[in-house]
């Protein structure tokens, strides 16, 4: 309900099912892969930016996985996390990211966000989703019958 998936995004439920919540935005070139047999659950209001690759078995709410980030399948993401652009998050053992964690920089440093500004960010995301909902059908050449 309300999730936007770009036509060029890839959702690979190879081994197990993937459940995606409402209000998520999956942008172009994003790859969501589930190679495990368990269900991969993704929460609400997440933003998967262009070119990112997510294999994490659990993703919470209101996260942002920035452009070209790569998240390993050993990492579980909780809510309100941000994985920065181009960051490769590969922990060696199973790990769970706390809420409000930000991972940034080429060496994947972490720090905790104070949560300030999250209302505005959620607002922005909702506006982003609405805009995409209007615009994408107009430009989708494969489904021209529906949109125009």
């Amino acid at each position, binding site marked *: 309900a309300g999730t936007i998936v770009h036509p060029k995004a890839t959702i690979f439920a190879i081994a197990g099912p993937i459940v995606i919540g409402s209000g998520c935005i999956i942008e172009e070139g994003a790859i969501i892969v589930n190679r495990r047999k368990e269900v991969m659950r993704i929460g609400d209001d997440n933003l998967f930016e262009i070119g990112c690759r997510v294999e994490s078995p659990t993703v919470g709410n209101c996260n942002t996985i920035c452009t070209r980030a790569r998240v390993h399948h050993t990492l579980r993401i909780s809510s309100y996390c941000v994985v920065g652009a181009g960051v490769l998050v590969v922990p060696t053992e199973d790990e769970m990211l706390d809420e409000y964690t930000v991972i940034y*920089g080429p060496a994947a440093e972490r*720090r905790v966000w104070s949560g*300030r*500004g*999250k*209302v505005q960010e959620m607002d922005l995301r909702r*506006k982003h989703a609405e805009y995409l909902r209007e615009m994408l059908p107009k430009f989708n050449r494969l489904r021209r019958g529906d949109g125009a």
Partner: protein
Amino acid sequence: MAPKIEYYCPCLSESPHPPPPNRPSSSYSFHPLHNLFFCEECDAVRCNRCVSVEVSGYYCPNCLFEVPSASVRAEKNRCARNCFLCPNCRNTLTVVPSDPPEDVDSRMSPIVSTTLGEPPFFLYCNHCRWDSAEVGITFEKPTGLAAQLQKFEDSAPESLEFERLKEHFEPFLRASSSSSALPSASSHHVHTNPITAAASSALARDIPGVGKYNPLSRSRVGREKGAHRQEYPDYKSRVEVGTALSGEADVEFLRHLETVSQVAALEQRWTNSWVSPLSASDLKPLRIPLQSKKSKRCPSCRHILIKPEQKAQSVRFKIKLVAANYLPAIAVTLPHAQAAIEMLKRTSKTTSAAAQAEEQQAAGALIAGHSYSFHLAFTNPLYDPIQIRLAKAIAPAQTAEGDEAAERARRSTFQIQLPSAAFPVGAFAEAWEYDDEDEAMFLDDDGMEVVEARGKKGKDGRGKTRSVGIVEKRANVTIVSGEVLIPKEARGDVKFNMLVSYTYRSDDPEPSEEAQTGTPSRSHGANKGPEMKNFSFYTVVDLGSIMYREEPKLTADL
């Protein structure tokens, strides 16, 4: 280890000959073509090392606002507007309003009440999500932040101390500068800024061992200065120096450290001019330092080589005398390496990227005991056709350690064969003006000493291009091939200096043609009308390292 070619800039040295390329120190004299400039007056190549640089303007890299040089000093080289640097990740900070108060649950809350948002505003980094509220800096208005921060800066203990110091020394500075006999300009200093007064009297200070320069009578000034010096009372600082600068607070902090990340990293601290706090959580946002636009001049004739535009956002130049517009661009390729790479690509498609890179390197390697041909592609930037002549550079006389050592050295180095006759390169013109390509290809190679070397299109390494000569001529590019013979005992890099000289017809009423190579020659003649001009430069051609193998792993098709 791809083969490359670099150009030599003599950098105003006396001998025009370049140093032998195998010495590691000589790599500083050689530059790729895009780093070089060309002075038309002196007719010489200039590189970044010998050019004189001056600042042409300052701008803020964030807001692209050009700062007039007068305010640069006033604002201490920082942007005066709202541009700040995140202390954590050194990205730019944005000014952000706080969240509106949440009374209802956020799911259905309306859009933020006003477009400007609500106070208090704070700085926020989009990349690492740091915000200035963590260090306690908030603003009431979203603009003019620098002024609001100025209050904080001024109340820092260091700047208060500095102010007190200035006040303390001011009367003495005025007294000493007014009584000094320096040229009349100093008498105006009585009413100026104490900083300038301090600077000028520091210049006039007594330096032991150096006689004081004084256009007027010396002894009078010396005596007066000495008298004044004894009248300085002691300066009482505001804070006890011992405790302020002692590291006790720092030691305590370090003792209670839990993780390394609590200490501020070096990159985070050194942009700050003052001593910055040790702990990462205390780092304050900094105003963004200004960057400068520079213009470059030729060191000998002071002609401007590079002059950027005044606008900060434009990357173009008003004057741009780069060497690429005058010197032919040369590209070196090893045809056997390319052929091997093609074969590899076609056969193995599933090897990983790292393995492929290694194989490509191995394919291009120069194996001792073989001889390889290499291609040099010359691109002519001028609007006239030119004639290029290549020569091996003569190394300057080296001290011989002994006859035997020199003999061995000479035997074990590689031999180069270059086409020795002059070959033309066509003029540069727009793409649609060129004649049909086939016409140029069938031109006869006159004056070639060696067996003709006309391979089809020249890119195919399997063609019979073993010998030396022109390979291909197309539009304004000519490809010639040379040969390198590597004896079995050779080691190291295959690098040799090559002298390239070319003659071109110019419209200036300049001198007669000189067939000499070796130095940029321009004899002054009285002839009018278009004449041939001559220019030459040295380059170093690096073909890669010699790899020693018993038998070749890949059958290079030669």
